[in-house]
């Protein structure tokens, strides 16, 4: 019975995510890039081009699966599934908001944030293996860049997470949101229900989190693993049809997941006046998604050495300082 319930929940969540993140994500990305570049974006399939992504998915489903001759076949097939599953599993701990007398989330586990980080770190393996298994030098280079970048940025990401964890005293995402109730002043970006000066580490931690999350999800300005001007398409150069779409799904699921987590940790999750909680949560999440897309279409790409220096010489020391300062302020 318990297993059946879990299976139903999983299917519901994954369907929701596939629709919201992949479908809407790709559509939004194209529309927003259109606005920024003074174009119209997709317009003809469905009202305002809303069905464009569905049409694209149907097209991708019909495409032939091409496996390169010298590829390592089992690894080549497993890698996109690993990326997509890990990207979607991270959503297990995201609380959407109160509805039908309970909080909508798959599981409220008491190591919530640790679980999220663990799933984010599994994505690296999928990308690295996909790059290696393709037996293509561009794919391999893309995989390597991705691995070094994601490992470097996991550390500032985890350190930025430490700030809300220390303020809330728990790893459970649900408890973290509940502690931010009341007014906007109680959001952890503004220091939570503590003294006003805790807003300083709050805002900085939020900024560090967003930068590290952008790098972790391989988006411009940190998209070196798939820099098309140097590496064709990076680690998924050799992937075709639905396997390519699975990589995209994993990437969008993670980008949306990071935005959702930032909304939960720093912006009070489902708390907000008048509108129902879930609506507030979605507003905050999409605002952050918009921020990511805005940055993507406005900034140029960094060089690899600049990227690694930014993490190791900038964000990591800043993160340690944040943890120290927050601890000192809280005591």
């Amino acid at each position, binding site marked *: 019975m318990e297993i059946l319930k879990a299976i139903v929940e999983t299917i519901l969540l994954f369907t929701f995510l596939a629709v919201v993140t992949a479908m809407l994500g790709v559509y939004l990305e194209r529309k927003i890039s259109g606005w920024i570049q003074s174009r119209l974006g997709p317009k003809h399939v469905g009202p305002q081009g809303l069905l464009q992504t569905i049409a694209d998915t149907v097209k991708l489903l019909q495409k032939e699966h091409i496996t390169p001759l010298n590829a390592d076949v089992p690894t080549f097939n497993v890698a996109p599934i690993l990326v997509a599953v890990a990207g979607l599993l991270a959503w297990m701990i995201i609380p959407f908001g109160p509805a039908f007398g309970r909080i909508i989330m798959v599981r409220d586990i*008491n190591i919530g944030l640790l679980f999220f*980080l663990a799933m984010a*770190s599994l994505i690296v393996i999928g990308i690295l293996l996909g790059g*290696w298994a393709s037996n293509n030098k561009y794919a391999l280079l893309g995989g390597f860049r991705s691995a070094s970048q994601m490992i470097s940025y996991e550390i500032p990401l985890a350190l930025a997470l430490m700030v809300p964890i220390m303020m809330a005293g*728990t790893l459970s995402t649900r408890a973290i949101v509940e502690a931010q109730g009341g007014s906007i002043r109680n959001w952890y970006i503004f220091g939570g229900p503590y003294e006003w000066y805790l807003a300083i580490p709050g805002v900085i931690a939020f900024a560090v989190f967003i930068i590290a999350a952008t790098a972790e999800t391989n988006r411009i300005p940190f998209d070196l693993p798939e820099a098309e001007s140097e590496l064709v398409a990076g680690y998924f150069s050799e992937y075709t049809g639905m396997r390519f779409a699975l990589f995209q799904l994993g990437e969008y699921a993670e980008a949306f997941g990071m935005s959702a987590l930032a909304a939960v940790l720093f912006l009070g999750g489902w708390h907000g006046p008048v509108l129902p909680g879930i609506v507030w949560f979605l507003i905050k999440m999409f605002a952050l998604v918009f921020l990511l897309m805005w940055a993507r279409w406005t900034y140029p790409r960094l060089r690899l050495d600049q990227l690694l220096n930014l993490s190791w010489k900038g964000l990591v020391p800043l993160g340690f300082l944040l943890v120290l300062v927050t601890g000192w302020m809280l005591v």
Partner: protein
Amino acid sequence: MGELAAFIILSALTLIPAVVVVTSGNVVRAAMSLIPSFLGVTGLFVLLGAEFVAGIQILIYAGAIAVLILFVIMLTEGGTGLAIRQLNEQRLPGIVVAGALTIGLVVLVLRTAWPLTAGTLPASNVTAIGTAFLTDFILAFEISSLVLLVSLVGALVIARKEV
């Protein structure tokens, strides 16, 4: 019943890839097989009610150590995709040592009286582990961080090119 089934499935998930790790002639596949093995161990930790250790297990072993091993192998010249011989002329001493070790371990396992009275789990074992680290086991905690620091500095000294 459910617990037993979960234990058997997770043990298989841990042990079958572990066999692949030592028998596969392809180094990358061997390193790759470490990952399901680590994930199986994670499942066993969850089964024991040690969620914090499970989370750290994925983060450190599957997410960092496995990636590091894969990275190093993939960068090694000629290390990728080659069928490497599994046996060499030292087969006989190897069998003897492994056999002796197995017998020793089996004897040890059989002679240990496993206490079956389990303690009670704390409400949140994250807090419990944190408190234990910074009170009762502070010395061990500090020493291990010192060891990590020393190894970090050592690695830098060895890897650094003379300018």
